[in-house]
């Protein structure tokens, strides 16, 4: 323990008191105590890893009296159907069994949330935008274009006809993390057009069928 400087072996002359030589020592123990107390307090009450946010722009709700826009014109689309920790997809439009156009009925394919599942699929399908992104990044590295130009051009590419559009549908059993995982993968794969929409009855029937397997 720290102490005040001890007497250096009694006075030399009689009992005369003399002021001590050298700097006076202060007992620092209480100060150290206080310091560490405060330290402990701040360490325990503080939060460091601030959560971040992921933004998602929803399409505006259309007034019900207006006719619904025909969204079947999209030529490069994938629909994901998310259930309890499982995810299915089909490409292009939905064709029910025995449809008027004579197309084969839509089949759901199961995939997973891992890197071999959705991510691989999206990278494959969204090559147009991803290649563009690599190209723009290279240009930016060489300082041929500004950062804002890069962002603008990339956004343009994302809205291009050739870029992938994704619809995300969820059933009653889906968990929040499943939905967030899918959206996250879409952001990783630079998918620009994301539409979280309601599941159709015919799709639900197909999903129920697929879930049994």
């Amino acid at each position, binding site marked *: 323990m720290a102490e005040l*400087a001890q007497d250096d072996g009694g006075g030399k002359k009689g009992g005369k008191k003399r002021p001590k030589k050298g700097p006076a020592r202060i007992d620092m123990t209480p100060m150290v105590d206080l310091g*560490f107390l405060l330290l402990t307090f701040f360490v325990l009450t503080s939060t460091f890893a601030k959560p971040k946010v992921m933004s998602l*722009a929803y399409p505006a709700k259309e007034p019900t009296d207006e006719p619904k826009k025909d969204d079947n014109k999209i030529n490069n689309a994938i629909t994901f159907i998310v259930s309890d920790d499982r995810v299915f997809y089909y490409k292009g439009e939905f064709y029910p069994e025995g449809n008027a156009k004579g197309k084969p009925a839509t089949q759901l394919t199961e995939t997973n949330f891992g890197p071999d599942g959705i991510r691989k699929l999206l990278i494959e399908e969204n090559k147009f935008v991803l290649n563009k992104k690599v190209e723009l990044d290279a240009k930016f590295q060489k300082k041929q274009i500004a950062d804002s130009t890069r962002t603008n051009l990339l956004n343009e590419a994302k809205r291009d006809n050739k870029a992938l559009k994704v619809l995300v549908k969820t059933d009653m*059993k889906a968990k929040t993390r499943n939905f967030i995982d899918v959206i996250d993968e879409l952001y990783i794969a630079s998918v620009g057009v994301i539409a979280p929409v309601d599941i159709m009855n015919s799709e639900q029937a197909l999903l129920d069928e697929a879930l049994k397997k």
Partner: protein
Amino acid sequence: MAEIKTPKGSPSIDMTPMVDLAFLLVTFFMLAATFRTDEPVEVSIPSSIGDKEIPEKTLVLVTVDKGGRIFFSCTGEEVRKKVVTQMAAKYKVPLSEDNIKEFVRITSIGCSMGELPQYLSLDGEGRKNYRKQDANFVGIPSDSMHNELKDWINFANREMLDYGKKMFEEESAKQGKGQAPLKPEDYKPKFVLKAAMDAEYVRVKTAIETFRDLNLNNLNFVTSQEAAAVVK
């Protein structure tokens, strides 16, 4: 030859560096830390590559916990006071001065308007355990017949717009000439959804639909950040 004297009594240690270090750390933690707020509900959030900071000035927060209960919160003392007063007037719920003060002080609330006076008279621990065992408890009612969440969001949005505008003007006036001009977008209300990983998505969807009914389509999900994946 001079004899080396061994010092008598207990040896003293120089504590100055230790104190220095302790206070250095204290200072660091004081400045770097933000305090953990006492939320009535704790949710484990999913992770994503989202890297936007959570807005602090003008935040309207809807929390959905594991059981699908809905909680509401917003920032700004002024805003909170006005919002709760308007809600009380709309639903004809008598709130005492103390209730309003308590509402302004705390963070999220998760109960219907009828229960609010009782909810506000509880302490933090009581609010945490409020109807915790009740499986039918939904937090703030948000079904289409009786959507209180919609009113909370609506009032908060309106008040936040005014408040944000005022704050923007004040802070712009304070700014020196050399600094970059402030962006008015930063002072617009931001809508944040904090949904528990294991919450049923249907419940989150009710909250999302409520936002969309009010034509608030830019939503943010609170996520913990994971390392950005590299796409080859």
